[in-house]
């Protein structure tokens, strides 16, 4: 009699592995932003108004005492994506500095943070705990697209603000259905449009091959780019995808290199960025190459040593390692005050920390401008910002929002070219203010 155990264990093993991979990598697919459904907010007339009529148990000033206002945040502090925890160093230093000056409107700003290891299930549990146990006023700068999707509905139902998310998905521009949440970094679609704009000026008949991560991160770039090149001489000659579980992207890059393309749009992130840059170099192909702004920190793009020089991306913050800003007032403030309030020398050179510092300044500005410290008032203020230039934003970039008319926070960027050490800025700041929606695919 033949034993069957062995076959069975092999099948079990494969099934288990697939399951674990799925769990390990998560999936940030979400078919739609819910456009067209839902109750719909009241149309703003003049300033932006957000109705609190449908809120479950609306508590306008929860988390605000006479002397303090408490925020919550959840992001990976351990595990594979722990590097994102650097962001919080930046805003915590900024709040320490502001608090030492007396805080905002006499209130000290406190942010209670929890570790979610980039697992959206944990983000949800953390958020519940922060809301129920810690009684936070609002969530702030929660990292990750799937993570924010996981908490969007609960926070929305209770009308608890979720401010300045650390993700560039174009889903965060749906004011009508999700007024209690607002993004921060430029959407991936905006980035694509800015690259298309660069090509129009510098390489008007570019033949482009796209490498995209097989989820809505990659899709954001692809859809945005296609819309941006409509009616131009720029053509897409090849599109390749990769899964985050693929060990390598060499075969995709080989196909792209022989497609006749002279330009590469690499909508890849994390380690797949330097990986694909290495593969481009090894294939002998020499395209004009664009990488996602999520890869621009030296700790990521710097890994592709010798393969990263001349690569393009979009920049919206002053890079601490760029000597151009050595005498810049905002940069000096970040470096000296930041160190005074807890940053190390290495932190003060880190672009992610600089982003955190900028977000801290943006939140403080928002609270300062809010007519009163209620959830509704702060949220309405976040949706009606005008000409703010907090922290390390590049000269010429300002923050403007106007409810559903202009739902994206940062929509201006400048093309930068990596020189092996930092990003050399090219040309001028390009503004897509109020226009991101034209390139975004919120309906999938």
């Amino acid at each position: 009699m033949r034993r069957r155990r062995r076959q069975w264990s092999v099948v079990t093993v494969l099934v288990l592995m697939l399951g674990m991979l799925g769990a390990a990598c998560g999936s940030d697919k979400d078919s739609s932003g819910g456009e067209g459904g839902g109750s719909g907010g009241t149309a703003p007339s003049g300033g932006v108004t957000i109705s609190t009529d449908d809120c479950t148990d609306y508590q306008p000033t929860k988390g605000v005492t006479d002397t303090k206002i408490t925020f919550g945040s959840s992001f990976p502090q351990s595990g594979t994506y722990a590097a994102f925890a650097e962001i919080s160093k930046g805003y915590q230093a900024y709040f320490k500095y502001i608090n030492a000056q007396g805080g905002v409107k006499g209130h000290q700003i406190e942010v209670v943070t929890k570790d979610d290891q980039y697992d959206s299930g944990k983000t949800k549990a953390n958020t519940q705990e922060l809301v129920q146990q810690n009684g936070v006023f609002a969530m702030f700068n929660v990292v990750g697209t799937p993570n924010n999707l996981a908490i969007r509905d609960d926070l929305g139902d209770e009308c608890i603000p979720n401010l300045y998310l650390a993700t560039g998905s174009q889903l965060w521009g749906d004011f009508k259905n999700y007024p209690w949440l607002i993004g921060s970094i430029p959407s991936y679609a905006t980035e694509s449009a800015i690259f298309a704009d660069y090509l129009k000026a510098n390489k008007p008949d570019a033949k482009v091959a796209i490498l995209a991560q097989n989820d809505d991160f990659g899709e954001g770039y692809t859809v945005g780019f296609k819309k941006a090149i409509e009616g131009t001489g720029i053509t897409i000659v090849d599109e390749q995808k990769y899964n985050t579980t693929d060990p390598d992207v060499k075969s995709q890059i080989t196909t792209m290199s022989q497609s006749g393309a002279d330009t590469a749009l690499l909508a890849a992130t994390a380690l797949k960025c330097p990986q694909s840059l290495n593969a481009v170099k090894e294939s002998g192909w020499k395209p004009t190459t664009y990488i996602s702004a999520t890869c621009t920190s030296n700790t990521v793009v710097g890994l592709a040593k010798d393969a990263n020089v001349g690569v393009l991306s979009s920049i919206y913050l002053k890079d601490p390692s760029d000597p151009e800003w050595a005498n810049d007032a905002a940069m000096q403030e970040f470096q000296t005050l930041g160190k005074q309030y807890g940053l190390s020398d290495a932190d003060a050179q880190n672009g992610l920390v600089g982003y955190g510092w900028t977000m801290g300044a943006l939140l403080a500005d928002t609270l300062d401008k809010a007519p009163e410290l209620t959830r509704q008032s702060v949220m309405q203020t976040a949706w009606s910002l005008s000409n703010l230039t907090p922290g390390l934003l590049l000269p010429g970039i300002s923050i403007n929002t106007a409810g559903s008319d202009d739902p994206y926070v940062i929509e201006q960027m400048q093309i930068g070219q990596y020189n092996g050490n930092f990003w050399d800025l090219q040309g001028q700041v390009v503004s897509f203010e109020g226009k991101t929606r034209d390139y975004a695919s919120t309906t999938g």
Partner: protein
Amino acid sequence: MDLFLDRVVIGLEQGAIYGSVALALVLIYRSTGFVNFAQGEMALFSTFLTWQFWEWGVPIAAAIAASMGVSFLAGAVIERVLIRPVGDVEHNALALVIVTVGMLLALNALVGWIWGTEGRRFPKIFGAGTVDIGSVSISYQALGTFAVLAVLLGLLYLLFQRTKLGLAVRAVASNAESSSLAGIRVGRILMFGWGLAAAVGALAGALYASELSLLDSNIFFQLLIYAFAAATLGGFDSPVGAVVGGLVVGLVTVLAGGYVGFLGEDLKLVAAFAVILVVLLVRPQGLFGRKQVSRV
């Protein structure tokens, strides 16, 4: 035609790496009869060790050798301390699987704790150039990977077929109880099997990181599923099968990704699994595996 040949080379190069990790899986399976889920993360740890030696200024070849030595000892210790107390596969298979899954998570966390989670650059073991053969250029890296794998297979063949130690390993794998009665120290043989697998894993990890020129703490999650596919295809108890299985999986995924339009790069693994399914239907023990027969 050029594109086709390029794809074949890339498929074989990637396949060689899947095969080398599959080899480590097979070595443990042969001696103990169960699958070590932590194999990928053991290789991850070893590869970070190699990186650390290299970072300290040790030449890369010596760094790999040192890491293989340390990994051999660590593998043996893991068998003695974590695996043996749990029991053997006949009586406690599920607990063993759970222990290795636990090790997978623990080792990954340990790597993050020691070396942090940001990516690292890893050197090209065989240099960065290419050799042109006709219209195809093959990187030194790919040639080196093939050569190392061929030598490794040869050495394993000699070990298993031509030495007393190899004979003892085969005896223990075949029937531990009888081996023990015949005077073989089964415990030591099992430790040897684990140590050997860990050392092979260290080498496979270095080849993989060198191919990518990069290293971070989650690259082996991605690799292990391909290695499982390779070992399943080749037969879980055959070293040659593991390598051939790896090459086939590499080749099929790259070619299917390139030429089968409706699959494309994003679904290419499906093609590999379809091949495996067909093979298993015809030969349940895999291409090179031996049929398991047991008396009742």
